[in-house]
């Protein structure tokens, strides 16, 4: 380019201006939960499932850091084992939708025409169902559990990615560089793979983390309603529901898992926000 009229900043100063503080906090919070989940057996010597009738409803203290529940299980232990379920729900819950949604969006946006019209009608019908209600309905048919949770999410949530990718693909298919590729005789599959996809995927990448937040809230809500991970496997939403009847006498059974959901979801949300800012302001 022409002569650079830029007073360059030091690399450190530039990074400090570019990387949002919230991103750092978010990454730390997320890594904290991942570490707890992985190291659960090392950190706690309690069994998350075994019932201990002699020590029910113990308040937080030296013995049970965060108290014990109605069947005498250690709340802290159940929370860190439960993190495995909730983290899995957050991260694997987005995999199916992103693959299916991106493929449909790409094909639909690039080819347009009748295929697009049909796919968009299907999309329109899918988004006419309240997200959460359709997930519950599908879980009802398949039976509760993680597997049916992942299947129902894929059936329902592909629309988010399809909309993001399709809107980009619609613009890109008319872009000059795509027309140039066509005049050079490139086949459609190559154009989609090398020319459309890399340029259409960015908004989806930004959205993935936000989606993980929504997914974890949804998954724990299912657990709360008794439609998610089945007892006795520890899961935060289900733990909160178990403690609901003891809100006045043993508040810790519900409140600590609640704080766990909030901190993990907040961490992911901060990462999402930071990533969005980083990718949108980049060169």
């Amino acid at each position, binding site marked *: 380019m022409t002569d650079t009229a830029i007073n360059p900043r030091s690399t450190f100063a530039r990074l400090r201006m570019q990387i949002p503080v919230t991103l750092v906090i978010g990454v730390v919070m997320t890594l904290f939960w991942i570490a707890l989940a992985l190291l659960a057996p090392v950190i706690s010597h309690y069994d998350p499932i075994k019932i201990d009738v002699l020590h029910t409803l113990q308040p937080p203290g030296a013995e049970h850091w965060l108290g014990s529940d109605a069947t005498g299980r250690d709340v802290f232990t159940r929370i860190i084992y439960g993190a495995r379920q909730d983290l899995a729900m957050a991260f694997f819950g987005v995999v199916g939708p992103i693959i299916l949604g991106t493929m449909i969006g790409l094909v639909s946006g690039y080819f347009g025409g009748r295929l697009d019209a049909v796919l968009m*009608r299907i999309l329109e019908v899918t988004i006419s*169902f309240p997200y959460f209600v359709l997930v519950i*309905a599908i879980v*009802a*048919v398949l039976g509760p559990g993680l597997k049916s949770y992942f299947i129902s999410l894929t059936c329902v949530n592909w629309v988010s990615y399809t909309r993001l990718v399709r809107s980009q693909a619609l613009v890109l298919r008319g872009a000059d560089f795509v027309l140039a590729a066509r005049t050079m005789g490139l086949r459609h599959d190559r154009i989609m793979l090398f020319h459309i996809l890399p340029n259409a995927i960015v908004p989806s990448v930004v959205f993935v983390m936000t989606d993980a*937040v929504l997914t974890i809230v949804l998954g724990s809500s299912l657990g709360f309603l008794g439609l998610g991970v089945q007892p006795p496997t520890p899961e935060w939403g289900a733990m909160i529901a178990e403690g609901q009847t003891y809100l006045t006498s043993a508040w810790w059974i*519900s409140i600590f898992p609640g704080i766990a959901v909030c901190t993990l*979801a907040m961490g992911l949300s901060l990462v999402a926000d930071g990533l969005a800012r980083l990718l949108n302001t980049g060169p």
Partner: protein
Amino acid sequence: MGRYGFLLKRPFQLIPVLIGISLITFVLLQMTPGDPVRLMLGPKASQAAIDFVRARYGLDRPVLVQYFYYITNAVQGDFGQSIAYRSPVGPVIVSRIQPTVFLILYGLAISVMLTLALAVGAARARGRWPDHTIRFLCVAGVGIPSYFIGLLLIMAFCLHFRWFPVSGYGPNVIENLWHLFLPALTIGIAVTPILTRNLRATFIQQLDADYAMACRSKGLSEHYVFTRHVFWNSLLPTVNLLGVVVAFLIGGTVVIENVFTIPGLGALLVRAVLTRDYFVVQAVTLILACGVVIANFAVDVATVMLDPRVKL
């Protein structure tokens, strides 16, 4: 036909969507394990009774005919028999529509008010601490599950201060504004972060828009530019988002009705799933989807009213 001609046209355009919705709910029931009629009539039903119900709902006919029966019955308000309630599904649902609709509208009103206050506040204090605080709260707030907000509110205002009843649904509107305040507030708080983030971002983008600068170049005050130009232009994307948010809200009521034990469709749905009351699940899903369709229609009307460029 003019700009509002779509009010007549639009309902016809919704037909394919409604057909799609009915198809999906129909397929869902087809996929359920076991024989729904046996489930419906219980283990002690006679073969004659089973055959009668089969014929009544066309279940002994080919799938396509079954679908036709399903549609005609649904249009007449016949959704089959509830196992748990031992009565037709239709009346069971009708009595529960009102609390849910009330809760959704109440929650929507609260979240719209919260959103406007927060987003305008943030945009006017752009780049200063109120803006940063509101932004941070919105980012963090997305991650708080609504049922947990509900539990905290119950602990604080019902169990500790005893200002509000823990659960239930009152006999009239005035009573319900008080009865349902906490559940509505919970739902409102749950969707406010998304709406506020969106509206704040749009405000700030529109404040930098070319037309806003052109207004300033004419010597119009910042206050005037915001209230007369930027505000209205910024509403459009958020109004469009409202359609999605209503779908989200309807999902939210399913959880909240269970937290606060409100006798609405959401509580009914969860109970039906747990008791494998499939006809109820099917009917509630269908009704709630129709609710979203109506909400989207309302959003279309609002968009046309706000934006002279839109023609539907």
